[in-house]
């Protein structure tokens, strides 16, 4: 009997979090899934009916959805590869034993991460301006004629990915650097005595030992970038047209700019469904799942 009582009191500790999970996570998600099957929008405000799969059929067969989904993939993969590559390269450079001023360089490199992204994105929005922006003014010093970053689609992607690279590389540099520093020094000195070249040491010591960190960080970065709202919402708002729009931004705009709550719900559900499937596959492959629970 005592154990039942203890268990009950034990639950009191996690009760607040259980309540939050139910009311602020589960309930909204279930409600969103429900809305995605109704005609709840500006025209049927609070007098909506169940419409079955018709929203899903409309959206899944629309050109906009195909484009936005493709954009989300471009955005995620296109951002992640340069971010991780630059982060890894800078970490390798900073990890050299005979490098001086490591602390100073690291502090300077962390600045984009330390400054609130919401503000720096608004600043970048001005700096990319076609006529007046400082980016084009600096490029003109090298004889480059002004580039319309916002209205030429490939240039808009370049702008978005470069800005995201600026925002995110410090995180990858810092995580990779701390992983590199945890590799025992003896491994390298033994290999050096055995005559292994710098490249061989990297290939046979650094890479295998970093694999796990790279997988872990890569999966985290993938899910974060997939739903990274502010860069696209602030810089292009998905434009021109929907040429750079991604699922999460499109859903927000559908709900709060156009009052198409049902469409917003469908986009959100599809967004999360794809992400969950991808994340589970990636976690299975990399064996990170064991470390999470």
């Amino acid at each position: 009997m005592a154990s039942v009582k203890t268990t009950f009191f034990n639950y009191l500790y996690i009760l607040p979090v259980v309540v939050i999970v139910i009311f602020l996570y589960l309930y909204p998600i279930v409600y969103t899934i429900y809305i995605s099957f109704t005609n709840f929008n500006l025209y049927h405000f609070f007098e909506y009916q169940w419409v079955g799969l018709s929203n899903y059929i409309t959206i899944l067969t629309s050109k906009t959805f195909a484009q936005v989904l493709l954009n989300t993939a471009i955005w995620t993969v296109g951002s992640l590869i340069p971010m991780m590559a630059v982060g890894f390269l800078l970490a390798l450079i900073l990890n050299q034993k005979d490098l001086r001023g490591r602390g100073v360089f690291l502090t300077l490199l962390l600045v984009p991460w330390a400054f609130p992204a919401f503000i720096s994105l608004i600043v970048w929005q001005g700096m990319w301006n076609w006529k007046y922006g400082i980016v084009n003014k600096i490029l003109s010093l090298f004889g480059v004629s002004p580039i319309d970053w916002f209205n030429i689609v490939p240039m808009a992607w370049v702008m978005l990915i470069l800005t995201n690279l600026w925002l995110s590389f410090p995180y990858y540099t810092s995580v990779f650097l701390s992983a590199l520093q945890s590799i025992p020094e003896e491994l390298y000195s033994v290999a050096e005595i055995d005559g292994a070249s710098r490249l061989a040491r990297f290939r046979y010591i650094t890479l295998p030992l970093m694999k796990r960190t790279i997988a872990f960080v890569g999966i985290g970065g993938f899910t974060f970038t997939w739903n990274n709202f502010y860069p696209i919402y602030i810089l292009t708002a998905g434009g021109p047209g929907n040429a750079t729009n991604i699922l999460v931004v499109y859903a927000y705009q559908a709900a709060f700019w156009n009052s198409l709550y049902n469409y917003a719900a469908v986009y959100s559900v599809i967004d999360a469904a794809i992400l969950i499937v991808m994340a589970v596959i990636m976690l299975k492959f990399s064996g990170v799942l064991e470390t999470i629970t």
Partner: protein
Amino acid sequence: MKIWDAIRLGISYAILAIAAIIAVFPIYYIVITSLSDVPTIASISVNSLIPKPESLTLSAYKGILFSTFFQGTGFFVWLRNSLILAAGTVAISVALAFLSGVALSRLNVPGKRALMVTVYVLTFFPMTVTVLPLYLMFASLHLINTYYGLILAYSSGTSVYGAYLVKLFVDSIPKEYEEAAMIDGLSRFGAFTRILLPLSKPVLAFIGLLAFMGAYTDYALANVFITSGDMWTLTLGMWYLSFTNRSTLYNVFAAFAVLMGIPIMAVFLAFQRYLTRMYTMSGMKG
């Protein structure tokens, strides 16, 4: 061999220097702009970024601090609102994360693995999914345009995630600490608050920072949950000054960005060793 080392180091310093300049440039740009007399973005040039010391002025700071912009509100009202929201979010997140995290780590709670997996999966849903239903729910509870509604919404994410972090952290503290204290007559709850609470300070400080930043830099939720000007936060004010109100002087916007951003940056850089370690441990990107 010597010469190769010199070349390698030379290239390394060059890459680091370029990367550092690019990293710092936007912040330098905004600081210099806030101190210069540049009414619009068009007046910023490569030359104006290297100003003469005598041309620097604090007029933009006067402009942002002592003017009202929207429905009679200005910087200090927005700052007050942002700080109230952030403080409330920090208090609730840290308290709930500690209680639940300790329980998940130390107490026998059937079904806790299921709870943690559920929470992990739920974090994949974009916040846009939850904003709309939360808005409808809070509207029926009259929580729109109140501090409570937003604090609740902000705390939900950080307290649940924080509980998970506290659990990971407390798992690494030996049980013997509390067991010894309980033999000496401390209650279970007392053992938690007297023994584990002080030991958990590093992780709780980190959760506090995440909670603060979440509330302080949120725009997406505040934009939906706040409709009256006297409840505006810094982010809503900044959005208004940079995108809605086209007559805003650019150096005034820059001064706003500096006042809102530089203190956060300074704190982050001051505690960078500790923070980067915590971020690495949590496997989460800020």
